[in-house]
C-alpha cells in the first residue's frame, strides 16, 4: 500500500467509522459498539501493517508523504513515522482498542460517545503522525474537543469542573505553542536553507536548528514556550493539578486513554518539536528540566500516598512516573568549554529510557485505571478505606490487578522497570545529586503501591457498600487485562525487541543533530566572547 493511503487511512479510518455509526438505528447499541470496536481493531491492524513496512534499522523519517495543503503559507499535509513516533502510534491504537472494549460500561448516549471516541482517536493518531507543525497543531486541537465532551458529558459528579479545568489548561498550553510556532515560522524565513520561505515543516526546521541558524535567543524563548505547553500535557509539577480531577471524573475508558496516550503527547511534543528545533534552548534549560522531573517524581509519589480516592492515587502515580520521562530526555551534559556532548551514549540511554517509560506507563497506567474501573463498575465507589478483602471475593481479578500494579511499581520483568532504571542510571552522568534524589523515588513508589494493594485487595473481608455486587471478572474484562499484562511482560523481558530496537537509531540521529546544533551556536558564542576580550 502507498504510504499516503496507509497513513491517511490510519488517521481517518476512525473518523469514517464515526460517520458510519449514523447508518445504524438509534436503538441498536450493541451493534454500534461492535462496529466501533471493529473500527479500532482494524486501525490497530493497520498500525501493525505499518510496523511491517517500517525499517527498524533506519533512524531517519520513513514513509514520508507531503501534499500542499495551504500553499500560500507553505502548509503541507505532511506525514511520516520514525523510531520515536512508531511505538507511540502502536500504543495509541492498542490502548484505543482496549479502551473501546472497556466502553461496555457506558450506558447512556452511546452513539454520541462512540462518535467522540473515534474522533479522539483520529486526533491522537494525527498528532503522532504529522510532520508539519501546523498540521500537528490542528490535530492537537482536534483531540482536545472530544475529550472535553467525553469528560463533561459521561463523567462523574464534578464533571463540568473537571472538563473545564482540563480544557482551559490544555488550551493555555496550545496558545503558548501557537506563539512559539509563529516565532519559528517567521524565523525560518531568515534562514539560508529555506530560500526566504517561511515554513512549518518540522524536519526542515530541525535542519535549520542543526545548522545553528536559529539564534540562541529565539531558541531559548521558543523552547520555554513549547516546554510549558507540553509540560502541561505531560504533566509536570506545577502544571499537573488538572490531571487528578480529570481522571477522577472521567469514565474508565477515557481515563485509560487519558493516562495511556494523552500524557505521552506532552513527552512526544518535547522530543519531536521542542528539542530538535531548539537544541540551544534545550541545553539552556536542561538542568531545570531534570530538576523539575525529579521534583515531580518525589512530589507525585508523596501526594499519591496521601490519597483516599483510588483513581486520584493512580493519577498522582502518573505525575510521578512522567517525571522520569522529563529527566530522561534532558540528561544532556555538555563540556562547558567546547560545547561537545559528554558521554552521548548515556544521554541516548536516558532518552531511550524516557521513551520506554512512556510506552511502559501507557500500558501500566491504562491497566491500573482499568482495574480501578472494574471495581467501580461493581460497587460504585472508590474510597480506598472502604475496600479490603477483594482477593477473597475476586481472586483472579486480584491476581491480575496485582501484576499490573507491580508493573507500575517498576518491578523487573515488567514494563515499568526498564524505563525507570535506564533513566536513573543515565542521570548520574548529568548530575549525581539529582540522580540520587530520583533514585529515592523507588522507595516511595513501593510504599504507596504496596499500601494500596494492602488496603484494597488484602485483608479478610470487604468493608464497603454493595458487597453482593462483587461478581467475578468477566471474559471481556479478562481479555483486556490479559492483553495489557502480556504486553507488560514482553516489554519487561525483551525490551530490545519490543521497543528499544525501534527507537535507538532515531534517538541517535536526534541526539547527534541536537549536539551539532548546540555546538555550532556555542562556538559562535565563544568566538564573540573571545573577540570582545582581547
Amino acid at each position, binding site marked *: 500500500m502507498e504510504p499516503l493511503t496507509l497513513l491517511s487511512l490510519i488517521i481517518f479510518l476512525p473518523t469514517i467509522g464515526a460517520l458510519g455509526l449514523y447508518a445504524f438505528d438509534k436503538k441498536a447499541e450493541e451493534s454500534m459498539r461492535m462496529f466501533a470496536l471493529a473500527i479500532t481493531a482494524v486501525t490497530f491492524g493497520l498500525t501493525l501493517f505499518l510496523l511491517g513496512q517500517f525499517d527498524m534499522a533506519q533512524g531517519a523519517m520513513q514513509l514520508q508523504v507531503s501534499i500542499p495543503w495551504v500553499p500560500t503559507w507553505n502548509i503541507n499535509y505532511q506525514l511520516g513515522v520514525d523510531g520515536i513516533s512508531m511505538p507511540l502510534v502502536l500504543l495509541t491504537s492498542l490502548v484505543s482498542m482496549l479502551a473501546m472494549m472497556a466502553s461496555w460500561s457506558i450506558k447512556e448516549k452511546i452513539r454520541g460517545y462512540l462518535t467522540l471516541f473515534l474522533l479522539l482517536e483520529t486526533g491522537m493518531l494525527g498528532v503522532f503522525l504529522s510532520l508539519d507543525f501546523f498540521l500537528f497543531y490542528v490535530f492537537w486541537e482536534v483531540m482536545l474537543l472530544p475529550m472535553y465532551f467525553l469528560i463533561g458529558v459521561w463523567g462523574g459528579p464534578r464533571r463540568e469542573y473537571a472538563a473545564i479545568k482540563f480544557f482551559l489548561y490544555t488550551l493555555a498550553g496550545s496558545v503558548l505553542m501557537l506563539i512559539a510556532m509563529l516565532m519559528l515560522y517567521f524565523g525560518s524565513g531568515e534562514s539560508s536553507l529555506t530560500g526566504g520561505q517561511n515554513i512549518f515543516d518540522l524536519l526542515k526546521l530541525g535542519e535549520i536548528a542543526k545548522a545553528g541558524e536559529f539564534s540562541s535567543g529565539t531558541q531559548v524563548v521558543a523552547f520555554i514556550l513549547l516546554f510549558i505547553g507540553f509540560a502541561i500535557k505531560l504533566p509536570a509539577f506545577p502544571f499537573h493539578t488538572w490531571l487528578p480531577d480529570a481522571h477522577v471524573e472521567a469514565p474508565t475508558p477515557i481515563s485509560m486513554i487519558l493516562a495511556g496516550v494523552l500524557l505521552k503527547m506532552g513527552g512526544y511534543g518535547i522530543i519531536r518539536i521542542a528539542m530538535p528545533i531548539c537544541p540551544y534552548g534545550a541545553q539552556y534549560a536542561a538542568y531545570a528540566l531534570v530538576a523539575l522531573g525529579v521534583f515531580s517524581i518525589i512530589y507525585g509519589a508523596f501526594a499519591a500516598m496521601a490519597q483516599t480516592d483510588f483513581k486520584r492515587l493512580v493519577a498522582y502515580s502518573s505525575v510521578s512516573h512522567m517525571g522520569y520521562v522529563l529527566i530522561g530526555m534532558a540528561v544532556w551534559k555538555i563540556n562547558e568549554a567546547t560545547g561537545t556532548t559528554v558521554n552521548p551514549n548515556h544521554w541516548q540511554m536516558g532518552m531511550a529510557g524516557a521513551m520506554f517509560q512512556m510506552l511502559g506507563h501507557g500500558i501500566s497506567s491504562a491497566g491500573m485505571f482499568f482495574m480501578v474501573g472494574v471495581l467501580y463498575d461493581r460497587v460504585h465507589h472508590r474510597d480506598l478505606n472502604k475496600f479490603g478483602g477483594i482477593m477473597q471475593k475476586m481472586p483472579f481479578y486480584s491476581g491480575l490487578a496485582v501484576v499490573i500494579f507491580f508493573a507500575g511499581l517498576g518491578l523487573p520483568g515488567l514494563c515499568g522497570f526498564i524505563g525507570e532504571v535506564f533513566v536513573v542510571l543515565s542521570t548520574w552522568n548529568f548530575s549525581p545529586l539529582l540522580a540520587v534524589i530520583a533514585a529515592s523515588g*523507588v522507595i516511595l513508589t513501593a510504599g504507596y503501591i504496596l499500601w494500596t494493594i494492602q488496603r484494597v485487595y488484602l485483608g479478610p473481608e470487604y468493608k464497603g457498600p454493595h458487597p453482593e455486587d462483587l461478581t467475578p471478572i468477566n471474559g471481556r474484562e479478562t481479555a483486556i487485562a490479559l492483553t495489557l499484562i502480556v504486553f507488560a511482560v514482553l516489554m519487561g523481558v525483551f525490551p530490545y525487541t519490543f521497543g528499544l530496537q525501534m527507537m535507538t537509531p532515531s534517538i541517535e540521529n536526534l541526539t547527534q543533530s541536537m549536539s551539532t546544533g548546540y555546538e555550532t551556536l556555542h562556538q559562535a558564542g565563544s568566538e564573540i566572547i573571545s573577540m570582545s576580550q582581547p
Partner: protein
Amino acid sequence: MSPDIYIETGTTLKWLLTTAWLLPLAGFLIEVFGGYWSGRKSRAAAFLAVGCIATGFVCSLIALLTWLDAADLNVSDIWQNPRAVAAATHEVSEATHVDHEHDADHAADAEHHGDHEHAVPAHSEEEHHGHAAHGNNPLKFAFNGTFYTLAKFGRIQITLDYYIDGLTVLMFTMVTFIATCIHLFAIGYMSDELTESYEDHQVHLPGGKHFHRPGRFYRFFSFLSLFCFAMLGLVLAGNIFQVFIFWELVGVCSYLLIGFYVERKSASTAANKAFIMNRVGDFGFLIGLMILWTWFGTFQFANTNPDQTGEQGLFQMVRTDAGAIETEGEGLNRVAYMQSATGEHLLGNDGQARRIPYWLLVVAGLGIFAGCVGKSAQFPLQTWLPDAMEGPTPVSALVHSATMVAAGVYLAGRFFPMFTPEVLLVIAYVGAITAFIGATIALVVTDIKQVLAYSTISQLGYMMLAIGVGGWLAGLFHLITHAFFKSLMFLCSGSVIHGCHHEQEMTKMGGLYKKMPITCWTMWIGVVAISGLAIPITLPYLGAISFSGFHSKDAIIASSLSFSTLNPTHSLLFFIPLITAGITAFYMHRMWFMTFFGKPKDHHVHDHAHESPWVMCGPLLALSFFAAFCAVGGESGPLANLLLTSEPTHVAGGVQAAGELGLTLPSHHEIHECHSQAGMMALLAALMGTVVAYLFYCKQAVDPALVKARFESAHRFLKSKWQFDEIYDSMFTRPVHVVAKWCTGFDREALDRFLHSCASLAVGIAQWDRKFDEAVVDRIVNVFGEVTYAAGRTLKGVQTGRLRQYVMFIAAAVVCLFVVLFLFLPR
C-alpha cells in the same frame, strides 16, 4: 584452558544451569494458572514443583561435576590440602600459558606485565602483597557469556549474562538441594490447605466467627517455584545489573510468600515492611549501579573468554592481574586507574587513561553493600526479617534463612574485588553489630520461629563480618553450612509447629522429645552445628570432630582475630563475635531445651502433639546429614577447596596498609597461624553458653524468671527489639505520611487555590465589564433613542389631518421662507 574447551564446557554448563533456572518458571506458570482452574484438593501443583526443582538439582549436580572436570579438579583432588590444590591449579594455569604462547599474542603481553608496571613509576601501587603466596585466579575457571541484549547504545550495552564459576555451581547445587527438601517438607506441612474451606484461627471476623476460605495449596507451590526461579537467576547472573533484576524479583517473591495469608493484617503489613525495607537497600544498590555505569560503562563481572574478545569486566578493570587497585594521589584527589586486558591502563576515547575518583569507588561499594544490608537484614535494616516469620514455615526455611537472605552475603562475596578496604571495614562493623544485636534479642524471644529468625540475622552478621575482615572463604563457607543447618532447624520448628497444631510459643511447649524423637534429634544436630561445638581432637583428613558449623564459625573467628591483630584499633571486631558465639550457644540450647525437655507446660498442646509424617521427616534427615557433614575436613575439606577456586586473587596474599585508612587484610598464612588459638577461644565461649543454658533450662538450677526480674529494664529493652521499630516509625514512617499530606495539601491549598483565584479574578473582571456595558455604553445609546422619541411625541400634535390647515402651513412656510431668504441671503 583452550578456547575450544572453554566454548564446549561453557555451553554445556550454560544449558544445564539454564534448565535448572527456567524449569521452576515454567512450573510457576503451569501451577498458578492450572491450579486456579483445577480443584482445591489436588496435590498436582506440589508434585510439579518438586519435579521441577529436583530436576534442577540433578542438572546442578551434573553441572558441578562438569565444572570440576573442566577445572581439572576431580573429586578426589579436592579432598586434599588446599595449598596442594592451589599449586595444582597453578600448574594447570602454567600449562595453559605454554599452550597459548604459540598462537596468541596476549600471553606474551601477560608475561611482560611485570616489566610494564616498572615502566610506569608515576603510579604508585597502593596495595602491596604481604606474602609471596601466589593468588588464586578465579577467572581462570569461570565461564561467561550472554543470553540476550536488553539495550544497546553505541558502545555501551546492557545484557543478560551468565557467569559460572565454582561459587555459582556450588550455590546452584546448595539452593536446589535445600529447595527440593523444603518442597517435599511443604507437601506435608501445607496439607491443611488441601480443602475447599480452610478455617483460619488467627483471623477474627466482627461476628466473632473464624475466617473461612478455599485452600491455597497450589498458590503456595507456585510462589515457591517463582522464588526458585528468581533465586537461581540471581546466582547465575553475569552482571551486576542482572543481579539487581533478580534481587528485586526475589524480593517480590518474598513479599508474596510473607503475605501468603493475605487475610491476616499482620502478614500483609510484614510483607510490605519487608519489601519496602529491601527497597531502601535497593536505593543504595541503585546508587552503586549508577556510579559503576557512568564511570565504567559496563556491568559485567568479568570477561573470561580466552579469546579476549569483548570488553573487560568490572573486576578486570578495577584490579590488576595481581589483584591490586592501582591508585594515585591522596584524599579526595585519589584516583584509581582502570586496567586493560593487556595489563596496561585502559584508554578512553580521548586517548587519556581512564580513571575513577577513589571516593566514588568507595561510594559505589557502599551502595552495592547497602543492597546487601537490605536483603541480608543487616543493621540498620534488620527489622523486617523477624516480622517475615508471618509466612508459612517452609518459606522461612527456604527464603528467610537459607537462600534469599544469604544472597546479600553471596553478592558481597561475588562483588568482593570491587570493594576497597574502607568498604570492607564498614562491612565488618555492620556485620559485627548485626551479629550482636541479633543474638541479644534472640535471648529473650519466646516464639520458636522468632528465635531462629534472630539467630539468622546474627549468623548473617557473622558472614558479613568475615567478608569484611578479609576472610572471604570463611564468610562464604559459613553461608553454605548455615544454609543447611538453619533450613534444617526451621524445618524442625515447622515440624514442631505442625505437630502442636500451629502453636509457636515455646512457653507452651516442653517435654516434646518423646513425642517427636526424629524432630528432636535432627534439631539437636542443627543446634550443635550453629553453636559451634566440637570435640577438640584432630583427625587426619577430617579435622576436628564436629558438625559443619564449628568449622565455618571457627574460620570466621580466626579471620577476625587475625584482622584485629594486624589492625589493633579494630580489636572490637574480634571480641564482639567471640562474645556472640557464647550467646549463640546459649540461646540455641535454650530454645532446644525449652521445646523438647523439661516438664510439659501446656497439657493441651502436649497431649495432641505428634511426630510428623515421613514426607516431612525425610527432608529433615537428609538436611541433618548435610548439616553435620557438609564441612567435613574444615578448611582443608572439599567444600572449602571448592570455594577456594573462586576466591578473588588478592585475598590469599592479604593486603597491607591499603586505602585511605591504611588497613591491613590478613593473608591465608596469617589466618592459619592464629587458627588454633581462635578455635579454642570460640569453643570455650560456646561451651560456656551451652552449660549455662543447660543449667537454666534443663537442670533448672537457676530460675530464669528470677534473672529476668533482676534485669528488668534490660529485658524490656531486648524484648522491644532495641526499639528499632519505634524509632523507624517515628523517624521515617510518620514523617513520610505527614509530607504526603503536605503535598496533597499543597496541591489543594496552593496550586488549586491559585488556579481558583485566577478563575474568580476572571469572573470578577467579567462582571465589572458587564456592569460598565450596562451602565455606561448602553446608557449613551438609550439617551439618543429617548430624545428622538420625545421629539417625535412633541411634534405629533401638528399632525392634525386637516388638509386646509396643512395648506395654510405650506403657504405660511413659503411666505416665511421668502421672508427669510429676502432678509438674510446676500444679494
